[in-house]
């Protein structure tokens, strides 16, 4: 039986697109559809191979991108107008989404109650005690996938087959292992999780274990600069045994 991680990927397809735009350092108005489409599908493939559940909207956008790309390959027809419109709509949509992301950032920079200023008494419903620097960035799924790709490249797999089988290594074991490492050190680097591993299976299992821990909010993935090295830190919480 193959282990399957149910992950609420609330980062949607637009988030991925924006991420690719940033990574490629291009303007939204100049999105090279072919390249972006290719990279986007790479991510979907990877998520698929990892058996990650993702929202149907990812596929809708994939189809849109593929469609726009396919039409660009054909000789100009009357339908060119529709393709232009699609492309335009997409860019427009992306821009709007980006605007709100930036608005969200601006809001975060306001003086915030219970963070920058305090009043006499206050019952905070949400106390998330972070043991980290305010300037740390919470890593998103796509950055993790990027980092995973890097690790996979380094690892030789004798079988050469992309497969996670439960009999050999369990994700549960890996979860326990990661938590064990974090008991000794409050923060470990993403790379160090995969240091002694030699097979693709182990790498995948470890990665899935990390995702599970993130999902259960027992750990956090952070980096101090965008696209910088990723650290995994423990969340200060009661000792909840992992439920898998």
């Amino acid at each position, binding site marked *: 039986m193959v282990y399957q991680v149910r992950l609420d990927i609330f980062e949607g397809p637009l988030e991925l697109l924006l991420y690719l735009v940033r990574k490629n350092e291009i303007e939204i108005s100049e999105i090279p559809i072919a390249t972006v489409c290719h990279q986007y599908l790479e991510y979907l493939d990877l998520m698929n191979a990892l058996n990650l559940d993702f929202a149907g909207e990812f596929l809708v956008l994939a189809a849109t991108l593929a469609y726009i790309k396919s039409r660009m390959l054909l000789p100009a027809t009357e339908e060119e107008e529709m393709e*232009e419109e699609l492309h335009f709509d997409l860019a427009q949509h992306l*821009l709007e989404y980006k605007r709100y992301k930036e608005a969200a950032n601006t809001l975060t920079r306001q003086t915030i109650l219970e963070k920058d200023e305090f009043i006499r008494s206050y019952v*905070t*419903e949400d106390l998330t005690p972070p043991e980290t620097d305010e300037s740390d960035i919470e890593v998103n799924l796509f950055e993790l996938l990027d980092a995973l790709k890097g690790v996979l490249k380094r690892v030789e797999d004798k079988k050469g087959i992309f497969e996670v089988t439960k009999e050999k290594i369990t994700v549960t074991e890996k979860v326990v292992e990661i938590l064990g490492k974090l008991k000794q050190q409050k923060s470990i680097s993403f790379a160090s999780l995969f240091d002694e591993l030699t097979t693709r299976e182990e790498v995948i299992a470890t990665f899935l274990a990390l995702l599970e821990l993130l999902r259960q909010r027992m750990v956090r993935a952070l980096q101090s600069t965008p696209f910088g090295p990723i650290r995994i830190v423990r969340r200060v919480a009661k000792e909840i045994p992992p439920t898998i």
Partner: protein
Amino acid sequence: MNREESKAVIEALIFASEAPLTVDKIKELLKLQKSEINVLLDELVTEYNSAVRGFYLRKVANGYQFRTKTEYAVWIQRLKKVKALRLSQPMMEVLAMIVYKQPITRVEIEYIRGVDSEGVIKSLLDKKLITILGRKDVPGRPFLFGTTAKFLEVFGLESLKDLPALDNIDQLKEGELSLFPADQDKIE
């Protein structure tokens, strides 16, 4: 009651109030003219600002509230042993959409984000940063969301007018979109 005493009463009321105290409320209690109240409030604000005090009087969410100065936040954090009320990135995004486009429905939010947002909206409702303003008069009669006074309080805003303006990159203009950029040759 003389002037100085009135000012002291206002000061005490603000201190004891659980939420930012409005001028209307002060008027209701003290039965003074609004203009008079405002003068006293201005004096209080100045007094607290001039001395080297640990907290100051802030105008927020349509009312007045004492707040510790940002310079000393780190001390309060040590006292309380916990850091901030922290909102996740998706929550901030959804909040930003609601803030600038209110009243807005869940479907409209989900369209912009491109992904399901029910959970995030529920969290924001739980934290009382947003509320249901009513229903939209379309089939399905979906809820319309908007921000609350608490939202203003948490983000240190006097009113929605204080919001920083949205980025001005409003619309993509016709022809601004480059359809055939350099990588066309790399298409497989």
